[in-house]
């Protein structure tokens, strides 16, 4: 089995994994007229990419660190890829879930009779390529470039519906993401370059001198990175996420679970480890501030989520809350904080993916998006709602689902750094999750079908039903394999 994934040299795999979606981009464009072939092309590219990501994942796990210099524009200024465990993990998740998401998109887009499907799949191809670029980026500049590419390539997805709401949502999406990345992230990158003369990622960070001599500067840089990576949806730069909910559901799933928000928190985590340096970070006052902002994000977003009647909006706020966990872990910057952050990226991806795909399935089968309309729907769509419950349990952090371990690791991390109050936040967050995530599904099962008609099972099309179940089972499986992921990520925290 493992041999199957050792056919390609890792460098080749990296290139292919990013090139395959781009090739698919053109193929999809050419196959505009024959939807089946077009989707086949998307899935094929997805599988190729996934295969490469697995190859890379295994290779990196064995200690290899493939590096590719794309171009060196100036001495010290280059675009390069360098894969390390965290990136390999993120690449694996993104590419794997892309396949699932594509399958789901087929069901959703056709079931929902969406227009502009070719454009839709094309944008997806670019976006996934950009996401992999983020995952495998070898320096801040490359990271930044792909980060922007991801923003731009997902923009047509967000505004897919092309109505006024989509435009408004798209404006906020683009405005916040571009504004923060250029206004905050870019200066941070440039500043780091100015201070150190390099932007390369290096384990342990490159700002040790700065942190020692200029703590204030270091603090400002920390803040710039934390908020500049607005894809991580740290408050108050989160509104792009709920605003992007105007998009079709596969896009939401993509934003929340596969790539975009994940890219943000991945970025925060990676920058914390590889640029700022965990040791420096744990001593920095700014990190404390961000930690508490993240903690506040967790709670405030949960509170807002509770008040949302639109299921997707509720899930969006839930993401804001859940992904602040990663930021929290990154800013705690202790051994377990970082491991917890990494684990949360994986666990949340599967869980939230499930939830979104279920929400989409409900929309496809019954055109319902408000929770208040879903009462009694559970008995009409039992499989969808069961998958939803599994996803919700994983997000809440209940065993035997994957979301359990990150929470535990983060608790360990918070205690390690003496922030007992964060443990309270994590607990409270879980309890709030129960209320706002489980309630809709349970009510859907328990309340009577409106009009007291007999409940006849009417599920979404198979393409909308199997993917959420796939990820739901993934939540279960990952619970048992989380130990392996933690072992996998251990090189990140060596010496902490």
């Amino acid at each position: 089995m493992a041999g199957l994934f050792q056919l390609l040299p890792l460098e080749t795999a990296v290139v292919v994994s990013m090139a395959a979606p781009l090739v698919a981009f053109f193929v999809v464009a050419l196959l505009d007229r024959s939807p089946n072939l077009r989707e086949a092309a998307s899935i094929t590219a997805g599988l190729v990419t996934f295969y490469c990501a697995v190859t890379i994942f295994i290779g990196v796990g064995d200690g290899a660190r493939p590096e590719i210099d794309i171009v060196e524009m100036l001495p010290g200024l280059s675009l390069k890829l360098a894969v390390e465990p965290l990136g390999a993990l993120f690449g694996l998740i993104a590419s794997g879930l892309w396949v699932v998401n594509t399958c789901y998109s087929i069901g959703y887009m056709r079931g929902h009779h969406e227009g502009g499907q070719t454009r839709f799949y094309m944008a997806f191809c670019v976006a996934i390529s950009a996401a992999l670029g983020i995952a495998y980026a070898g320096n801040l500049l490359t990271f930044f470039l792909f980060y922007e590419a991801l923003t731009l390539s997902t923009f047509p997805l967000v505004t897919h519906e092309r109505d006024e709401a989509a435009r408004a949502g798209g404006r906020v999406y683009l405005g916040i993401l571009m504004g923060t990345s250029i206004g905050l992230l870019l200066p941070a990158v440039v500043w780091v370059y100015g201070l150190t003369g390099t932007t390369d990622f290096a384990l342990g960070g490159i700002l040790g001198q700065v942190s020692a001599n200029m703590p204030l500067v270091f603090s400002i840089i920390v803040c710039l990175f934390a908020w500049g990576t607005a894809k991580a949806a740290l408050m108050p730069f989160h509104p792009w996420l709920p605003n992007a909910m105007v998009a079709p559901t596969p896009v939401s799933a993509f934003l929340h679970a596969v790539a975009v928000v994940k890219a943000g928190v991945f970025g925060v985590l990676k920058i914390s480890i590889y640029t700022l340096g965990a040791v420096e970070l744990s001593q920095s006052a700014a990190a404390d501030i961000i930690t508490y902002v993240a903690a506040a994000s967790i709670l405030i977003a949960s509170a807002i989520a509770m008040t949302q009647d639109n299921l997707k909006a509720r899930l969006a706020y839930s993401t804001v809350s859940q992904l602040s966990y990663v930021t929290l872990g990154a800013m705690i910057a202790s051994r377990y904080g970082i491991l917890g952050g990494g684990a949360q990226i994986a666990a949340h991806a599967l869980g939230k993916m499930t939830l979104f795909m279920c929400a989409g399935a409900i929309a496809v089968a019954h055109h319902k998006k408000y929770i208040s309309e879903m009462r009694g729907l559970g008995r009409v769509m039992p499989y969808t709602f069961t998958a939803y419950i599994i996803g919700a349990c994983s997000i809440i952090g209940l065993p035997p689902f994957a979301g359990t371990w990150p929470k535990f690791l983060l608790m360990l991390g918070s205690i390690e750094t003496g922030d007992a109050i964060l443990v309270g936040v994590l607990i409270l967050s879980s309890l709030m999750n129960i209320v706002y995530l489980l309630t809709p599904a349970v009510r859907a099962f328990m309340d009577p079908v409106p009009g007291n008609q007999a409940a006849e099972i009417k599920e979404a099309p198979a393409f909308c039903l199997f993917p959420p179940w796939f990820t739901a089972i993934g939540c279960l499986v990952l619970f048992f394999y989380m130990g392996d992921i933690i072992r996998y990520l251990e090189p990140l925290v060596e010496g902490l």
Partner: protein
Amino acid sequence: MSDEQHPDILPEERSIFETPGWIRFMWFFVPGTGLFFALMNIVLAVLHKTHPHFGWLFDKNPVFYGIVGFVSFSFIVLVGQHLRKIVMRPEDYYDGPEATMPRINTDDEVRMRSISLGETDE
């Protein structure tokens, strides 16, 4: 066991436990048994076959248990019922009309209903 004549039901609807004879029997049986065991305890105490851990006020006293049983029970019932003055509320106090929201109608529930009517006993 019932020690009270039910005012409304017909005599032929009564079971043996509701007959005056049974009730009379109970009025003898219960205190009688109690006294019997109290006596037995006194005997045991006299024969030093008991193993008390506390003083005369407590288990060294052979009828202590009877007193405890009687007094505790009476205390619980007589004092406990006054708790109602503080905590008792109408049945729909918490959930209001939602408390009576109809139950669901899954296949299982349909089956359950038929079982409860005794239609499909196996």
